[in-house]
């Protein structure tokens, strides 16, 4: 037992071990993102105000009718995953900062903009998350979910904030997806270009779908 604990301690304090934990938690968050998106897409299923049934209202009430312990278990689980992801990244970032001495003239050959702005986009996503939770998760009645969303997105400032935040998410995910595969040791010279395509496609599809909602309200496609 001691051996296991010692190794685990060494693992979570090593550079590779922490990278793997960041990748693992990142993957969980990616999965959550996909799940969340699937739920969001129900908004295109019609609304109560326009004559039909509102799928998103069903979806929202459905989520809220889960037993409280399960709902909170999922929420706390997600929180823990996000916290590990954030804390470890910040620690790694701090170490990386200290490991470096800076050039008078900086040069970059290959590192993508998204890979160099991970912390920045991450912080943006975090701020957005706080706002998003306050606005849409903890306020409002799940039965009137559609109207609530409509109220938010018909405000152009709010929509713009959402769109900018999702663009940050795109940047974050674009590096994150291929990085996860490399960290798990699943990348080779032959498949790495493919992973890059997958990362970009994943980002475009997921983020595009998220952005489509405020855009749809602004353009009147949804009303």
């Amino acid at each position: 037992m001691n051996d296991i604990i010692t190794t685990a301690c060494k693992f979570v304090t090593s550079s590779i071990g922490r990278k793997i934990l960041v990748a693992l938690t990142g993957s969980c968050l990616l999965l959550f993102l996909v799940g969340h998106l699937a739920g969001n897409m129900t908004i295109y299923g019609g609304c109560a105000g326009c004559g039909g049934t509102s799928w998103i209202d069903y979806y929202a009430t459905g989520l809220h009718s889960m037993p409280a312990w399960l709902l909170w278990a999922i929420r706390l689980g997600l929180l823990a995953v996000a916290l590990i992801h954030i804390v470890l990244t910040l620690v790694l970032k701090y170490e990386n900062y200290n490991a470096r001495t800076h050039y008078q003239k900086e040069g970059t050959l290959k590192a993508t903009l998204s890979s160099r702005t991970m912390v920045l986009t991450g912080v943006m996503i975090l701020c957005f998350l706080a706002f998003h939770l306050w606005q849409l998760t903890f306020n409002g009645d799940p039965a009137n979910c559609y109207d609530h969303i409509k109220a938010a997105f018909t405000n152009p400032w709010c929509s713009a904030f959402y769109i900018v935040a999702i663009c940050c998410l795109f940047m974050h995910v674009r590096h994150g997806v291929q990085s996860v595969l490399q960290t798990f040791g699943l990348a080779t010279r032959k498949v790495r270009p493919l992973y890059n395509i997958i990362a970009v496609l994943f980002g475009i599809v997921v983020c595009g779908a998220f952005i489509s909602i405020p855009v749809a309200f602004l353009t009147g496609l949804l009303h």
Partner: protein
Amino acid sequence: MANLNLTLKVWRQENAQAQGRIETYKATNIPDDASFLEMLDIVNEGLVHEGKEPIHFDHDCREGICGMCSLTINGVPHGGKHVTTCQLHMRQFKDGDTIWIEPFRAAAFPLLRDLVVDRTALDNIIAAGGFVDVRTGSAPNANNMPVRKKTADAAFDAAACIGCGACVASCKNSSAMLFTSAKAAHLNLLPQGQPEKNKRVLAMVRQMDAMGFGNCTNQYECEAACPKGISVDNIAKLNRDYMIACAAEAVGVFS
């Protein structure tokens, strides 16, 4: 053959403790057939004649194999042309160019003078586990152990690392993962390296962490700056091998 006139912005620092600064020099009439280091030789000869101290830089074989030459040129170690600085030729530059020349920078590479840094940290990683522990004289006949040609070639590709440290100097985090992973992969791929594989991986990674290098964030600057084309596939392999080695150590299998 043409001659170039260049402006050099060079990092000068008398010793480890002194305050460093960028100084500007004119390099005139540089033959474009000259190598980058020969260009610095010409500048230095001029400085010495003026009674000034020459720009100190590391170099030795000048044929791209010893790994002693360093220099970050315009922000990129070795200038980013997939060759070492000693094999970088002036025909890569244009007349009138301004060239920034700085040392390989990383906290784990303390600066000694001007462009000279101490890369002993890389040796320490090898000393921790970058070897096959065989005693001289105890080896069996070389052909007793067949190695698949593909495996041998892959091991060679990793072993071609010259230990110059450009990967560290180019990394936005000053990580030594490419160096460490290349040596680990070279030995972990070969049948000779199997008995110590887990031990090696753990020892090398832990030593790497202890030397104050940063952490890899999969940006692949290292691969792009490497004069020998060492692949980041080695990093993926080290990540994999490290997970296996940790698992083995934790549960006591093969450790």
